[in-house]
């Protein structure tokens, strides 16, 4: 009998990178092969977007409130309490909103996609789809990745608005400011260099969340334990990707707009 071959960790890691590149190429190719699954795409947008809205809304609201409550003592100490709307809006729209909402989405969406596809793999549904001549990548992967790519930026926009509104309510706990004045100050303090780069990076956050969820689900091994592992691994990997993309986006934005 042949000897058991042990593959070194770095080789496995390289293999995994190779498989991810192959999977991403299949995803891109299947966008353009024709017969786009519109109904499944719309269903995924509903599942991913609408069903995450409450979680994103509540989290963003709390973040807005907490940020104002944390900022206030310091800004008051420096006599800059009037800068609270500006400070909150710039920090929330540029960084805190997109990253926190993407992390929330990674926890909810990437895990859900990873578990769903992992479960389909375990119960041979993916194999059944494949051997029937249907295209599981087109039906399951393309629709989910594109849905997250579309819905995460929309969720971030909604979350930004709710977070800033939370900040307004928190501001009025101690001070008084009308909603119209607050809105005017927020809008005046934001320009396209705050908004556009943040929006673009949320598209990549959405892409990463969908891709990682689908990849982990598709490549889970055939056992019930692997479903949990796929979900867990999808969250961890997607969260890591979000920070990596954020770091790259900040560098590019700094070079383009803040030099």
């Amino acid at each position, binding site marked *: *009998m*042949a*000897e*058991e*071959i042990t593959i070194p960790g770095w080789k496995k890691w390289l293999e995994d990178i190779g498989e991810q590149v192959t999977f991403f190429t299949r995803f891109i190719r299947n966008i353009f092969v024709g*017969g786009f699954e519109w109904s499944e795409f719309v269903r995924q947008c509903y599942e991913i977007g609408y069903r995450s809205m409450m979680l994103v809304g509540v989290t963003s609201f709390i973040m807005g409130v907490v940020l104002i409550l944390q900022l206030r003592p310091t800004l008051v100490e420096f006599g800059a309490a009037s800068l609270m709307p500006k400070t909150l809006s710039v920090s929330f729209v540029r960084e805190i909103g997109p990253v926190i909402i993407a992390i929330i989405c990674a926890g909810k969406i990437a895990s859900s996609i990873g578990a*769903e596809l992992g479960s*389909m793999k375990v*119960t*041979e*549904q993916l*194999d*059944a*789809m*494949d*051997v*029937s*001549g*249907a*295209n599981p990548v087109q*039906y399951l992967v393309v629709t989910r990745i594109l849905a997250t790519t579309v819905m995460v930026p929309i969720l971030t926009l909604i979350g930004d608005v709710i977070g800033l509104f939370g900040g307004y309510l928190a501001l009025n706990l101690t001070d008084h400011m009308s909603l119209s004045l607050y809105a005017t100050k927020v809008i005046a303090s934001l320009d396209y260099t705050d908004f556009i780069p943040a929006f673009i990076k949320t598209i990549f956050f959405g892409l990463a969340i969908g891709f990682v969820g689908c990849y982990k689900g598709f490549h889970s091994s055939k056992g019930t334990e692997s479903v949990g592992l796929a979900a867990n691994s999808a969250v961890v990997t997607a969260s890591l990707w979000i920070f990596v993309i954020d770091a790259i986006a900040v560098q590019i934005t700094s070079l383009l707009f803040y030099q």
Partner: protein
Amino acid sequence: MAEQEIIAEPVEKSHDKNEVVIEIKHLKKSFGSKEVLKDINLDVHRGENVVVLGRSGQGKSVTIQCIVGMLIPDAGTLKVFGEEVAELGEKELKELRMKIGFLFQSGALYDSMTVRENMEFPLTRVLKISDRAELDSRVNEILEAVGLSDAADKMPSDLSGGMRKRAGLARTLIIKPEIMLYDEPTTGLDPITSREISKLILEMQKKYKTTAIIITHDMDCARVVADRVVIMNEGEYLAEGTFDELHKSNNEIVKSYFIDIS
């Protein structure tokens, strides 16, 4: 290689009985250091039901997974309708798969869809049928054939084990494949439901004129559906013949499969 005991003539069918639709020669497949298929040889003729018996882990499922292109063999020849499966491109493999139905052990129903949506999935995605009337007609026909007309709008989770197998069979047959591959179709079912599924396999074969390979451990199922039985042992074919011929075999391993059969 173990001696091949009895070579039986394929059962006569109304169509071309000599046409070999699946041709396997010296097939080998290993996973890491484990050699699962050592030397598999098998011809399956049009219209016949070949039952493959063997202990777990002998490579029965691996063989049919190679036939449908889910696994690539390490060596040997595997031709379906005269085409070497391992050499097919993506498009050709898809075309071949449209002629092959694969019933998974679990039924593998898509659990986010109703039974009707499960039936419509291959019709709309594989055969590209979009006409509502034709979809309804074909779905109703196949569900009636497997006795699931009343379950069309149920979710797979609401079905019993036997119903799931029937629904899986219906979804596989709805695209009217020429070859059916059954992976343990009666596993996990009670004896009465197992018998019903076995009869259903036979009825569907007669109705849709399919050629089939049935992998099973269920001797009652083998007795009902088999035109020819092949026994696999340690990655090789040990014996083949009709059910009755193998039943009378003197080979100890073959006899062990028929020990409870009167």
